[in-house]
Each structure stands twice: as structure tokens, then as C-alpha cells.
């Protein structure tokens, strides 16, 4: 658990650079918004990504997203499942990139409590890994495809994949 917490802190530190760096005129293509099908968010998620560092063809970015499965719980009350994927990605290439990622997904899901059988929120940390391909078009269009296994609750390995579309700005 300590290792996962450190990783989350590291990724959040990457994001803390965003506010400082965004004042620069050169940062216009450092941001990306994308929709990921599959991937870190489970069935899908919307994500923001920030390019933290660029050294020649190598780029390092941090991402954070949001997803859900149910907005209402099983008693029909508004009580959404919340899934927050965060991660870091390393890209190598210019237009065509090799993409390697590592992250943690925080899940807060409503289950039945096995004591009083009322809805109960349970939080878990899950590890995400990814390796794939990313294409960045001239007008900022971004496409990603990859293999993205999940280690659920830091115990159960699941083969998983991702496809993502978005724009840099």
C-alpha cells in the first residue's frame, strides 16, 4: 500500500507543475483531453493529460480521469460509483509513439453491507499498467491503442485493453 501511495503522490506532484508551467506560451500543445474505452477506468473514462517533460523524442506526461458504473445505487438513490484513474505515461516518437504507462485507480463503489444489508461505499486502490501505440495528428488529434492489464485491489490480475481518442491543445 505504501508503494501505491507514493506513486499517487508522485503523479500528483507531476500535476502540481501544471499551474506553474501553463503560464508559458509554449504550453498550448502540452494539454490533452481524451476519452478512453476500456483502459484504466474500467469500461471507459474521460481524462486530462499534461505533458510534464520533453527530452528530444521522449515525453513524460501525467493523466487523471473520471469514470463511473452506476450513478444511482441499488435502492435508486443518487449515490454514484466513482472511479478515478491517475497515471504517468512515457511516449517515444514524434507522430508515431510507443506508449508505456503506469498508474493507480482509486475506486469508490457501492456494495451491500453484509451486516445490515444497506448500501455501503468501499474504497480500493488498483494498479494499472499499459503498453501500446499512440498517434498524434497535425491538428492535435490523438489516438491510442494498447494492452492495459489491471491488478484489482492489488491482488487480482486482469488482462485488459484500451482504445482512446482525443485532442491536444
Amino acid at each position, binding site marked *: 500500500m505504501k508503494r501505491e501511495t507514493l506513486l499517487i503522490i508522485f503523479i500528483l506532484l507531476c500535476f502540481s507543475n501544471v499551474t506553474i508551467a501553463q503560464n508559458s506560451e509554449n504550453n498550448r500543445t502540452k494539454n490533452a483531453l481524451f476519452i478512453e474505452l476500456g483502459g484504466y477506468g474500467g469500461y471507459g473514462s474521460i481524462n486530462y493529460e499534461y505533458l510534464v517533460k520533453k527530452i528530444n523524442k521522449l515525453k513524460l506526461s501525467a493523466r487523471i480521469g473520471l469514470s463511473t458504473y452506476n450513478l444511482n445505487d441499488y435502492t*435508486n438513490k443518487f449515490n454514484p460509483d466513482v472511479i478515478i484513474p491517475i497515471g504517468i505515461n512515457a511516449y517515444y516518437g514524434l507522430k508515431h509513439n510507443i506508449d508505456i504507462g503506469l498508474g493507480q485507480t482509486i475506486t469508490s463503489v457501492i456494495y451491500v453491507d*453484509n451486516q445490515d444489508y444497506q448500501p455501503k461505499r468501499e474504497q480500493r486502490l488498483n494498479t494499472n499498467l499499459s503498453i501500446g501505440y499512440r498517434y498524434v495528428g497535425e491538428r492535435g488529434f490523438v489516438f491510442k491503442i494498447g494492452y492495459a492489464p489491471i491488478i484489482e485491489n492489488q491482488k487480482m490480475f486482469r488482462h485488459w485493453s484500451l482504445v482512446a481518442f482525443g485532442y491536444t491543445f
Partner: protein
Amino acid sequence: MKKHFTTTVLLALLFISCSKDDLRINNNIIVLGHGGMGINQTYPMNTFESIIKCLNAGTNGTEIDVQLTKDSVLVAYHSKNLSDHTNLIGTINDFNWSEIENAFYVSTPYLHYPLLSLDQLFSNIPNLNEHLFTFDCKLYTNSNALNFKEAYINSLSKIIDKYDLKSNVYIESQDTIFLIKLKESDLDYKLFIYPPSFDEGFNIALDLGLYGITISTSDVSREQIEIAHSNNLKVAIWNTHSENKNIEGVNKGPDFIQTDKVKHLVNLLRYD
């Protein structure tokens, strides 16, 4: 602009009126969920979450798949193999309940809903007797079939008696011997044969004096359902996994629909 708007409204009205004409509404059809909210939902079938959501959705009740553990606990689970949907390998009957109660579904990333015993379910449903339940009895075992069936019937009778469910439970099975033994154990059970074809089910139901036939909507016609009704047999249909299948099912005039599109069928029958 106004002309386009008028045309659009007229077309919409025409479409709505066609839909209603095509539907033979029978508000006496009993709406049951299929294992709760049905297949391909984020809540897996037969979980507490899925069943309670279904009961809160305006249905009359739900179908539940029922299996027996090695130590004779009835568990709500659909498939033969636990590995199809959960983190365990084997059949329900390979395990004692203490080994199953910590198991969980793995169908969807991050969602680990637990398996459920019927005792857990019925002891935690508010206003239990206001709901109807169909038990789809799955007789998966690697042990002696006859002893297994006796143990199954014994557990089923105990749970029905414990929660006073006799008047609001229907029991269905593909196994004729099992149905005969159930009928011998209590004449008041409402038993359904779940056959491969309507004709086969019809003959068995008449021979054994059963309450009805459970059959896929694809395998039965409106005329066959009318024949069943004229012989005092009820008909429950399932496999209505889309909105069109719900409408097709309603038009056949069955007594029960076990649907995978719960909200649609409730809206169709209760509010149209």
C-alpha cells in the same frame, strides 16, 4: 421552419400511434426480472444489488437461479461453473457455503459483488410477501443425483417454510424426476417444467398436473400459449433480452415474462 416543425410532429405522432397499434397490451402479465435486472448489467445476475434494484423498479418480482452447496445451502447463481463469473473454480455443489460466502463476481473491472445465499436474501428484503419469486432450480452436481435431489428439495422446503413463501414462489426445473419429487413433497407448490420444446413441455405439464411451462420466447407462439391456457396451464417466457423482444413477448400473451430489460417492460405494461 414552422412547416418543418409541423411535419416532424405529425411524423412523431404517426410513429407513436403505429407502435401502440402493434402492441396488444395485457396489463395482467406478471413482470419478473431475470436474475434481478437481467443479463449484461453492471450488477451481475442473482446478486443482492441486482435483485433489490429489480424489486424497486416496479416489477412484481424476480426469477432467481438456485443452486445447492455441498452442505445444503441454497445459493443464487446462474452458470454451472463458478469460473464463468467468479474468482472460484468448480461448481457450487463442490463447496461448502463457508468457502463460497467470500467469493465474488469478476465479470466487470473493479466491481466485486459477493455471491448470495437465499437465506441472506430473504432475511433482508423489506415487505418480502409483496413480491413474487421464481426459483429456476439448477441441479448441477458431481455426486449421487438422487441423494442430491432429495437434499435440494429438503433445503427448498425449509427456506419456503421459514419465510412463508409458498403463495408467492414458483418453482421451475428442466428435470421431470425432480418435479415429481417436489410435487410428492407438497401438492401446493406451483411447478413449471422448463422444456426444450413447447410440445414436450405441454405433454409433461399435463401428465404431471403442473402449474405451467417456462419457455424461451423464441420457442413459443401466441397460438401455443392459447392452447396452454385452454388447458389451465400458465406460461412463463424468458429470453426477452431487448426492447423488441419485450414487445414480441407481450404480444404473445403469456402469464409471466422474465425480462432482461426490466425498466422497459415495466414502463410498457404499467404506464402505457
